[in-house]
C-alpha cells in the first residue's frame, strides 16, 4: 500500500519527465497497436486464402461427355487430390454473375451463348500441393488450361513477411526509446530522493522495500501510456469493422470481428505498456539505486 502511494507521489513530482515518458509510451503503443491489427488481419487473410485455394481445370470445348467422365477419373487418381467436382459452363456463368454483384448484370447477355468452359473444381488435401497438382492436370489430354490463382498466395505471404520485418524493426526501436525515457524518469526520481534513500538504508530498510515504489512508478507510467492507444484501438477498429469492410467486396478480405479481437488487442497493448514501464524502472534501479 505504501509502495503504491509512493509510486503515485513520484509521478506527481516529476511533471515534465512524466509527460514525456508517458507520451513516448503512448506513441509507441499506438504504432504497435496499428501494426498488430494489420499483421494479425493479414495473417488471417492468408490463412483464409490458403484454405480456399482450388484449381479450376478448364475442359476443352470439344470434349464430349465420355471424355469428361474419363478426365474426372484421371484427375482423382493424381496424388494429393482430395476432390474433383464437375461444374458446367452454366454453373460457372451463374456463379460469376453472383460474385460480380451489380456489375454482374452485364454478363447476363452471355446466357444464350456462353463463352465459358466446363470446369473441374479440384481441391488438394494440402494447399502446398496446389501448384504441382495443377501442373499435372494441365498436362492431361482434354484440359485447356488450369487456373489456381498462380502466385497470389505466395505474394501475400511474401508481403506479410516484409511487413513483419519492417514493422518489428520500427517497433523495437520505439519500444527501446520508450524504455530509455522511462528509465531516465525513474533515474530523476532516484536522484531527487537520494537523501531519503540514504536514510532508509541507514535505518535498515530492506532493498526490496526501497525498490518497490520505483517499480510501481514505472508500471504506472507504462499503463498510463496505454490509455490513449487502447481508446484509439477500440474506437478505430470499431469504425473500421462497421464502415470500411462494407465497401470491400473481395471475398477473401474478411477482417477479424471487433469482439473479441479488439479487446484482445487492447489487453496486449496494456501488457506491453506495463512491460515497458517495469523494464525501464528495473534498468534504472539496477544502475542508480545501488542497493
Amino acid at each position, binding site marked *: 500500500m505504501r509502495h503504491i502511494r509512493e509510486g503515485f507521489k513520484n509521478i506527481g513530482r516529476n511533471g515534465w519527465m512524466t509527460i514525456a515518458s508517458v507520451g513516448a509510451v503512448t506513441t509507441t503503443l499506438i504504432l504497435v497497436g496499428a501494426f498488430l491489427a494489420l499483421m494479425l488481419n493479414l495473417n488471417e487473410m492468408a490463412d483464409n486464402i490458403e484454405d480456399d485455394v482450388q484449381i479450376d481445370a478448364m475442359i476443352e470445348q470439344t470434349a464430349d461427355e465420355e471424355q469428361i467422365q474419363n478426365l474426372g477419373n484421371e484427375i482423382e487418381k493424381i496424388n494429393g487430390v482430395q476432390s474433383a467436382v464437375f461444374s458446367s459452363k452454366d454453373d460457372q456463368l451463374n456463379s460469376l454473375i453472383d460474385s460480380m454483384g451489380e456489375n454482374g448484370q452485364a454478363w447476363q447477355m452471355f446466357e444464350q451463348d456462353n463463352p465459358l468452359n466446363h470446369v473441374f473444381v479440384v481441391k488438394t488435401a494440402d494447399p502446398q500441393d496446389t501448384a504441382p497438382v495443377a501442373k499435372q492436370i494441365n498436362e492431361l489430354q482434354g484440359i485447356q488450361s488450369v487456373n489456381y490463382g498462380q502466385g497470389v498466395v505466395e505474394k501475400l505471404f511474401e508481403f506479410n513477411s516484409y511487413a513483419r520485418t519492417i514493422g518489428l524493426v520500427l517497433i523495437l526501436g520505439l519500444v527501446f526509446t520508450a524504455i530509455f525515457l522511462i528509465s531516465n524518469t525513474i533515474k530523476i526520481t532516484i536522484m531527487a530522493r537520494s537523501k*531519503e534513500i540514504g536514510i532508509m538504508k541507514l535505518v535498515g530498510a*530492506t532493498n526490496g*522495500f526501497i525498490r518497490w515504489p520505483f517499480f510501481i512508478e514505472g508500471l504506472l507510467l507504462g499503463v498510463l501510456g496505454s490509455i490513449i492507444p487502447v481508446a484509439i484501438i477500440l474506437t478505430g477498429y470499431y469504425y473500421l469493422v462497421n464502415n470500411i469492410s462494407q465497401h470491400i467486396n473481395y471475398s477473401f478480405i474478411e477482417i477479424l470481428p471487433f469482439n473479441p479481437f479488439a479487446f484482445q488487442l487492447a489487453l496486449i497493448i496494456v501488457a506491453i505498456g506495463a512491460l515497458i514501464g517495469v523494464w525501464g524502472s528495473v534498468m534504472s534501479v539496477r544502475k542508480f539505486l545501488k542497493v
Partner: protein
Amino acid sequence: MILMKDVHKTYANGVVALSGINVDIKQGEFVYIVGPSGAGKSTFIRLMFREVKPSNGTIRINDINVNDLKERKVPYLRRNIGVVYQDFKLLPKLSVYENVAFALEVIEESPAVIRKRVMEVLDLVGLKNKARFLPDELSGGEQQRVSIARAIVNHPKIVIADEPTGNLDPETSREIMKIFEEINDRGTTILMATHSKEIVNTFRKRVIAIEDGLIVRDEHRGDYGYES
C-alpha cells in the same frame, strides 16, 4: 559485543584508512574515538554497520560476523545499530514526528507500535511539544535531538555517532551529551567520534585514539590528549 581483529581498510583509490585495528568493546560501554582529521575515525565507525567493508581482518557485532554477512542481511544488522551524524540527515519536508516515525515505517513496524515508540523517544529527547514542527523551524541542537530520537526509536543495542556535536555550540553540545549519557544509562553501547576536547575532558569515558589508521591509545576514563 563489538570485536575487531587486525582490521585493515584500503579504499578503492589506494588510500589506506585503517591498518590493523584491534578493539573489544563490551555491552553498555561509552567510547570516544579521537584523533586528528583524516586519521580514520569515520572509516572505523562506518565499518560497524557495513557502510564500508574491511579489506582484511574480522569484525564481530553481537556475535554476528559482519565481514561475510550476506547483502540481504545487512538491513537487519542496521536495525540493531542507531546512527547519528554531524549534519543530522533529517528530511526537510517531514515534521519532527514524521522524521522519527520514518525509521520505523520503512522497516514495516505496525502503526500502533510506531505511535507509541515515537512519542516515547520524543519525550526522552525533550521534543514532545515540537512534534509537528519542520526541521527548518528548529535550532541546530533540536535538530540533532530529532536525529538522536530517530537513531534510538527502534531500541538498538548500539548507537554510533560521528561528530554529533561538530555543528553545535558548547552549551548545546553539553545538552546533547546528557542525552547520550541517558541513553547509555539504559544499557545502550555508545561509540562516538569527536573532535571536542571539552566534551571528552568533561564527560569522562573510555577514549580510543586513532592516528594514521592505528590505535595509539586506549584508556578508560581517558582525556582528549590533543591540543584542540
